[in-house]
């Protein structure tokens, strides 16, 4: 990654033309928000890419320091706004570890349920946008149909569809509403057939394979060095999932597999996410079956204070990768420092490596497969 302001160092091309600098975004249909890329192209071949982020910066980490622990949950909703539940979970998990609160089992199961449903909804949104980036229009509408049902379930549970604010340090604010589990089970029973539908449209589609196989190669060493996590890492042949490696909430009590594919390309990352949706379906079904009775909120002080000179890092497997919180307490009701480990931020960083030497059309496919949310990158 070199500075785009320096003049092109490469030799002039065959016809004595200079490379063209293409300003990709921040208003561009394929940049999923306000990502801006300075792309140097030689014809349609990409010589260099320089991502420019920060258009959505809202100072969330500063806001965390201003508000008490309980009031910070809504800020986390607004980072990765298509996966609010997992953001909530990472934050409240970090606060609970900082203060030593233990969460009752029913709350742990409800959290697992919510975060798996959130993973489904996030992956559905990813599939929709990824497909439409590559030019397949129809999966967009199919996935939004199912995502709507998940959002309805969220709405029934906590009243919100996107910015859920559905967890508190110490447990869950509300119990599941009457009939929620039945509606959820009904959806989960039906959902695998819907995944078959999506796969029927794309998985063996020749054009889809042509556009994704061998595109955006990401070798595992590069992925690890760049801190790439989540489905991106599993598509590069590293079978690592925080839900298995360092289990939290109820993940050690349910049975699921961690999909891994070894070709390091966009197609394999697609396969990983499709398989993850199936596994999430399994987890939700098991959680519904095992859901214990009992309290949903632990005993906790009325004003939660971070212990003096305490610090903790807690990361969970979000839909896009490891989302973690590093929280420093200083004995006051506010966190002294609250750092978010944003998965999209670190995953996006590797983009210039993945698209070097490929075509502009591949750039779009690779942005899609990176599954970024600018609210989280810019915070």
């Amino acid at each position, binding site marked *: *990654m*070199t*500075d785009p*302001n320096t003049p092109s160092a490469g030799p002039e091309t065959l016809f004595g033309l200079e490379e063209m600098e293409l300003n990709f975004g921040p208003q561009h249909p394929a940049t999923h928000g306000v990502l801006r890329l300075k792309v140097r192209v030689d014809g349609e071949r990409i010589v260099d890419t320089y991502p420019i*982020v*920060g258009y959505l*910066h809202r*100072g969330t*980490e*500063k806001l965390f320091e*201003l508000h008490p622990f309980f009031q910070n949950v809504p800020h986390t909703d607004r980072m990765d706004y298509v996966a609010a539940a997992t953001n909530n979970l990472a934050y409240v998990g970090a606060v609970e*570890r*900082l*203060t*030593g*609160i*233990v*969460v*009752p089992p029913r709350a742990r199961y409800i959290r697992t349920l919510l975060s798996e449903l959130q993973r489904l909804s996030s992956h559905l949104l990813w599939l929709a946008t990824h497909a439409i980036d590559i030019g397949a229009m129809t999966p967009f509408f199919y996935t939004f149909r199912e995502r709507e049902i998940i959002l309805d379930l969220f709405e029934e549970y906590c009243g919100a569809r996107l910015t859920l604010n559905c967890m508190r340090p110490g*447990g869950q604010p509300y119990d599941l509403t009457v009939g929620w589990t039945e509606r959820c089970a009904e959806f989960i029973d039906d959902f695998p057939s819907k995944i078959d539908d999506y796969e029927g449209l794309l998985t063996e589609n020749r054009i889809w394979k042509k556009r994704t196989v061998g595109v955006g190669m990401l070798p595992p060493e*590069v992925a*690890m*060095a*760049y*801190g*790439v*996590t989540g489905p991106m890492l599993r598509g590069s042949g*590293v079978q*690592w999932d925080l839900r298995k*490696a*360092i289990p939290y909430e109820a993940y050690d009590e349910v049975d699921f597999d961690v999909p891994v594919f070894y070709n390091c390309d966009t197609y394999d990352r697609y396969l990983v996410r499709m398989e993850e949706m199936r596994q999430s379906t399994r987890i939700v079904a098991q959680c519904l079956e095992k859901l214990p009775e009992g*309290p949903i909120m*632990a*005993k*906790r*002080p009325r004003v939660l204070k971070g*212990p003096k*000179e*305490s*610090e*903790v*890092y807690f*990361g969970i497997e979000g839909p896009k990768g*490891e989302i*973690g919180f*590093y929280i*420093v307490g200083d004995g006051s009701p506010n966190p*002294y*420092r609250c*750092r978010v*480990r944003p998965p999209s*931020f*670190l995953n996006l*960083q*590797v983009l210039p490596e993945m698209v070097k030497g490929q075509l502009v059309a591949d750039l779009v496919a690779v942005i899609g497969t990176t599954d970024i949310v600018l609210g989280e990158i*810019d*915070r």
Partner: protein
Amino acid sequence: MSDTENLTPEEKAAAEEKAAAEAKAKAEREAAEAAKPAWEKDPAVPEWQEAEADPLVEALRASFGEAIRSARTFAGDLVLVVDRASIREVSKSVKEDHGYHLLVDICGAHYPEREAPGFEVIYIAYNFDANRRVRLKVEVEEGVEVPSVIPVWAGANWTEREIYDMYGVRFTDHPDMTRILLWEGFNGHPLRKEFPIEGIDTGAAIYPEYYDEKDGPAANAGTGWLLPKEEEPEESETPEGETT
């Protein structure tokens, strides 16, 4: 209980019995309290513990000695405080000799009220085989540069830029030490404790002729968005909403 000695033996026995019952009830209550599930007890606040016996710490001590200033754990997380000058070597060893291949995060923190006021840079790395995270910390004063760890973990690039952006801590040998979330020419580092939460007067980067240098960002530090004044005089008006 003022006139115990005047009691009859029967009364005495009754009192003893009552006391015994009370003690038993108390013991039962305590037992019940202990038997309560963890979520009904008061939270057990974690504490710092020395971690000199940890194999990773021992190995690093052997190679780096006093460059590892302290090694403690909190809530199960291993935290090493490392000398600023040797952070690159320590992280290289942590990665290559001890298998911490995945760079989880690098972040900063500001401690103006410490005895030696300054910043902390925190490196979090993960080992796949040992399934374990380690946190390395570097303490750095205002205006001092930290060696960049990009040669060790390529992913440090953006996170180090973000620390520079948010705290003003610079990294030596960084190929692109520019702001990342804020724009070039922003006058301040917002995650410092003294930075006002309501923000500062920004936006001056684009319109230097309207702002004093100390109010807004330095002139001409921007990316050259604004055309020269002579060419497009009508565009140099400050639009509403751009000033803050």
